[in-house]
Each structure stands twice: as structure tokens, then as C-alpha cells.
């Protein structure tokens, strides 16, 4: 390995984590409060700073200063480990997502591995450990129920998640996420093939299975991030907060952080897979000048922000599913749809001329 790669990688990691993701997480909380307030005809936080913009800082200070309480009967080691496990996967996943084209010749992805999407799924599937451990180590009934719900929910929806994106990779022919973006630049976004060879009628034929794929994937991501309408592991009304009932102070904040980081990661994946990643029609990539490289990054995060808004919008619109409905939906509905969708796309591809 050469030192240039190491230095740029480190710069990318630090930059993306501390400059983009963490502030984004804290302001996602602020945005969530503002969006929910607007949807419910309220004002939302407006006390700390202009329009309440310093609210995340105040929240963070408050959470840091709160008493860090460990229940006497809790299993201390795992109790402390769980919040860390909850944040980590969401942040690691960002490593394989291309968040820009190139900047001064450096590709804007931390690790451009050839199994990108599998890496995402593998690491995301580890996220459940944080929740399950939190529920178990608290040694308290509501957190325990939350942990149990979480693990079964994760297993159920991981299947649909994986199956839903297979059509995309059937088309692209590679699991590398940069290839996915590149394919979309050439052949049009999967969700809306209005760039590239949109005159090809076969592409239009593929639009229907792509939309199905998109819907199933987005719903599965909702379930994976424990967002409403699938937030059964925390379900305040039934489980008094679920797995983080017994947590306070910064440990609680870490769970919070984890949830929002997972939401950002999920949005980034959706943007990459279906919305052309950093690509926007008419804007050239970073090889035409560093300014375009920056614009590409901005485009990517604009897409992410828009998707985060959709996450919030859905949360403040839909009620929570009942547990049996959730399970039925996952196993009897999305699983089958995703499976059939693969066959349809495969069949179309088999007869697609000049692929």
C-alpha cells in the first residue's frame, strides 16, 4: 500500500465521519423535530439560537450532563457494550458508499470493494446485536421484549432487503457500488430512466420491476432502521421505550445516534442504488474540475437529505404496525414479491437484445 492511499483514505474517513455524518446525525434530530412540528402545525424547537438551530448542541450537553445510571441487576459489561454496538455498524457501512465522483483525482469512496452491497448487508445485519444485547443486559422485561422483537424483525426483513436489490445487480452485473452508479449514469436511474438510452423500449419494460424493487427495498430499510411504522422494538406505548428503557445519559444518546446514523446510511444506500448516486443529469463528474467534484458530493447529500425527509414524513404519517402484521407482511408478502421480481427481471434480461 502506498502512503498516498492511506492518507487520502484517512482524510476521507475523518472528513466524512466528523464533518458530514455526525453533524448530519445531530441535525437530523433537529430536522425531525422541526418536520414533525410543521406536520402537526407546531413550531418545534425555537429557543436555542436562531430558529432553535443550536438545539442539537444543547441536547448533547444535556445528555452528557445527565446521570449515567446503571441498574443494579443489569449485566454491566454487556450493558455498556450494547450502545457502542448500536452505533458502529451504521457508521462503518458508509465506507463502501460512493458519495462523490472524484475530487482532485481521488475517488470519493472510502473502500471501493467488489462486494459493496454485500458488505452493506453484512455490517447492517450486525446492528441487531446492539439492540438485542441492550434488551438482554438491562435485565428488565420491557427492554427484553424489545430486544426479542428486534432480532426477529431484523431476520425477517433482511431477506426481503437482500432479494429486493438482486434485480439491480442483475442489470449492473457487479456488486461494486461504484459500478452501480456508473451504470446509472450510462443507462439512466433505476427509479426513473429518463437519462441515457431512454428510447430503448426494453428499458421501459424494466421500469415496473425496478419500481417494485425500489418499494420493497425502501420498506425493508424502514424495518431495518427501526423507524415508524416498524419501530416495534422501542414502541413507547407498549414497551415504554423498548430496549433503551433502562438507558440514560450518553448511553441513551448513543442509541439515538445509532438510529439516525442508520437512517442516513439507509438513505445513502437508496440514493446510490436507485437515484443515481452523486449523478445529476447535466452535471459532469469530478474529472472536469474540482468544483464539479464538490458539486457531485453536494448532489449526493442533497439526495440523502431528501430521502431523510421522506423517512420523517412517513414516520409522522403512518401508525405503527401490529407485530403479527409486521411478520406477515415480511414473510408472506415482500419476500414473495421480491422473489418473483427477480424471476421477472431475469426473464426480461434473458430476452433483452444487446444488453
Amino acid at each position, binding site marked *: 500500500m502506498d502512503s498516498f492511499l492511506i492518507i487520502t483514505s484517512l482524510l476521507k474517513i475523518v472528513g466524512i465521519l466528523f464533518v458530514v455524518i455526525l453533524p448530519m446525525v445531530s441535525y437530523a434530530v433537529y430536522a425531525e423535530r422541526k418536520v414533525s412540528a410543521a406536520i402537526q402545525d407546531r413550531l418545534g424547537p425555537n429557543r436555542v439560537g436562531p430558529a432553535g438551530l443550536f438545539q442539537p448542541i444543547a441536547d448533547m450537553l444535556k445528555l452528557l450532563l445527565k446521570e449515567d445510571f446503571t441498574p443494579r441487576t443489569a449485566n454491566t459489561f454487556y450493558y455498556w457494550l450494547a450502545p457502542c454496538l448500536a452505533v458502529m455498524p451504521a457508521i462503518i457501512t458508509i465506507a463502501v458508499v460512493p458519495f462523490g465522483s472524484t475530487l482532485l483525482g481521488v475517488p470519493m469512496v472510502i473502500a471501493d470493494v467488489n462486494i459493496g452491497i454485500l458488505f452493506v448487508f453484512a455490517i447492517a445485519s450486525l446492528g441487531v446485536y446492539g439492540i438485542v444485547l441492550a434488551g438482554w443486559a438491562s435485565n428488565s422485561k420491557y427492554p427484553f421484549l424489545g430486544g426479542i422483537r428486534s432480532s426477529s424483525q431484523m*431476520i425477517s426483513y433482511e431477506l426481503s432487503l437482500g432479494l429486493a436489490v438482486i434485480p439491480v445487480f442483475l442489470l449492473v452485473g*457487479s456488486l461494486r457500488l461504484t459500478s452501480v452508479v456508473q451504470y446509472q449514469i450510462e443507462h439512466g436511474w433505476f427509479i426513473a430512466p429518463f437519462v441515457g438510452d431512454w428510447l430503448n423500449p426494453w428499458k421501459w419494460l424494466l421500469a415496473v420491476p425496478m419500481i417494485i424493487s425500489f418499494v420493497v427495498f425502501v420498506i425493508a430499510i424502514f424495518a431495518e432502521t427501526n423507524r415508524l411504522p416498524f419501530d416495534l422494538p422501542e414502541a413507547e406505548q407498549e414497551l415504554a421505550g423498548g430496549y433503551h428503557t433502562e438507558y440514560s445519559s450518553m448511553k441513551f444518546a448513543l442509541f439515538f445516534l445509532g438510529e439516525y446514523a442508520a437512517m442516513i446510511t439507509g438513505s445513502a444506500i437508496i440514493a446510490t442504488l436507485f437515484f443515481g448516486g452523486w449523478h445529476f443529469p447535466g452535471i459532469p463528474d469530478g474529472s472536469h474540475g474540482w468544483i464539479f467534484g464538490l458539486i457531485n458530493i453536494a448532489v449526493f447529500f442533497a439526495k440523502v437529505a431528501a430521502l431523510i425527509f421522506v423517512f420523517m414524513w412517513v414516520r409522522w404519517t403512518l401508525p405503527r404496525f401490529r407485530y403479527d402484521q409486521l411478520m406477515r407482511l415480511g414473510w408472506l408478502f415482500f419476500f414473495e414479491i421480491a422473489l418473483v421480481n427477480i424471476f421477472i427481471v431475469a426473464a426480461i434480461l434473458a430476452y433483452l437484445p444487446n444488453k
Partner: protein
Amino acid sequence: MSPFLFWFFALMMLVFGIAVVVNRNPVASALSLVVSFLGLAALFVSLDAYFIGIIQVLVYAGAVMVLFLFIIMLLGLRAEARRQINWLASAGAIAVALALVLQIFYVVGHFKSAGQRFPPLARPMTDDVRNIGALLFSNYNLPFQIIGVLVLVATIGVILLSRREPR
């Protein structure tokens, strides 16, 4: 790859592998196994076998062990944590394990190519996903199909066995 990383992950695997056996708490054992799997995955990745490595994490750590943990928690094996260690059985197990290790060393030691250095991999940055797919669906297609049918039969069997008779 860096020998340091190899030793680090190898040791991690061994330590947590032992922890799986030694831990009295089933949950702790399961989690140790997860860490051990992660070490194994890291070793695969270090050999540029990204696909195998990540599948290791995805399937074993991400799905199988979650199911295990789920079951362990639901069963609530508190008595297990208090059970006395049978020292005689432990000694026997260690003896058997040692004998196995000795045998392996003996066999490997008499293996001709063991004395030589491994030749470097032909194409380090190959697309292993494509290679594995091509292999599975060409040379090994029949075994793959047979395994598929076998797994299907097993699944149906499990559902049949675990289904409660309607009253």
C-alpha cells in the same frame, strides 16, 4: 498482508473460540462466537477473498448467530450459568483436542508441499464474486442443485416437525 494483522486476527479467533467453550453464560458464549467469526472473516478478506469473508459475516454472524441468541434468550438458561464444571470431562476433552492437534501437526509435517512457501495468488484483484458464480453454475452445478434440494427438504421437514397438531 501484514503478518501483524494475521497474528492479531488469528489470536482473536483462538481466544474467543476458547471463550465460547469456557464461558458459563450462554449469551456470552454466543457473542464470543460472533467475534470469532468476525476474525475469520477478516482473515478471508486479508487473503483477498472478499466474498467468502463477507458471506461469513452476513450468514453466520448476521443471521445464524442472531437466531441462536434469540433462542438462548427466550429459553432463559440461567441454570446453565451456575452449573458446576465437570473437571474430569474437561480434562478428557483437552486431552482429545491435544491429540488431534498433534496428529494434524504430524500429518501436515509429512505433507510434501508444507515445507515450501505458498506461491503468490495469480490475480490478487480478481472479481471473486463472478468467479464463484461461474464455478457454481458450471463445474459444480449438479452438487449445487443437489444441495439446494437438500436444504429445501430440510426446511419442509422442520416445518412439518415443529407444526403443532390442530386440535
